[in-house]
């Protein structure tokens, strides 16, 4: 009995969809993280450390091992300030 090749077509389409999804997600995450794998299970320490890294290097995943920071580091920290009803209207 010959192989029913017509039934492989939908299987091939479904596998191709999985492959495209996987490649697409990998590409998007790699581009978002400057070529590195994304961070996961981050706690507050890691989030604050990443804000500090962004302040030091300019990009969220940039790393730098100089012992001394550039002189702009002392004054370039910034916080966004919002009006909030919870904290009383500013």
């Amino acid at each position, binding site marked *: 009995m010959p192989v029913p090749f017509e039934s492989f077509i939908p299987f091939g389409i479904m596998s191709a969809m999985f492959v495209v999804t996987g490649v697409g997600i990998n590409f998007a995450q790699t581009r978002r993280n400057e070529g590195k794998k994304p961070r996961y299970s981050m706690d507050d320490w890691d989030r604050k450390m990443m804000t500090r890294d962004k302040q030091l*290097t300019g990009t969220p995943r940039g790393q730098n091992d100089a012992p001394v*920071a550039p002189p702009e580091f002392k004054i370039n920290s910034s916080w966004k300030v919002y009006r909030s009803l919870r904290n009383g209207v500013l």
Partner: protein
Amino acid sequence: MVNPGYKHFKGEDWVDPTPPPSDLPHVEEVGATGAPLKSASFVIGSMCKEYNEDFMLCKDEDRNPQHCLREGRKVTRCAIDVLEKIQANCRDEFRAHWQCLDDKNQMFGRCRVPEKTYNECLFKSLGWKKDIPFAPTNKPQIHERTPLA
């Protein structure tokens, strides 16, 4: 240096409208980002133990930032000193280790192989040994287990 989100306004042009008083001694800030700091963390912890504990006890007394400025300066200078020594002696192994950490979500347990060469280099050139505080003494420490864990 460009502050993130302010490409039109370079970091060199930023001026502090409320600078710290000029009678405070000047101290440089630590320039290492997350992964190199984590790589050097145990070394900084063992070398700068007294200064760090002084600072924490001082903060425990009073959370006012002005109260602990002097201890804070000592902590920063000690950390900078440790990082400079590591850079002078073991730069390539240090770089390999923190680049591995950066790739692996900053988890020590996934970067044991570069860590081994890094620890050996530190011990050979500076005599520093990585020691996990409060680890149980009846078995080898986790980074010294064989097979590497």
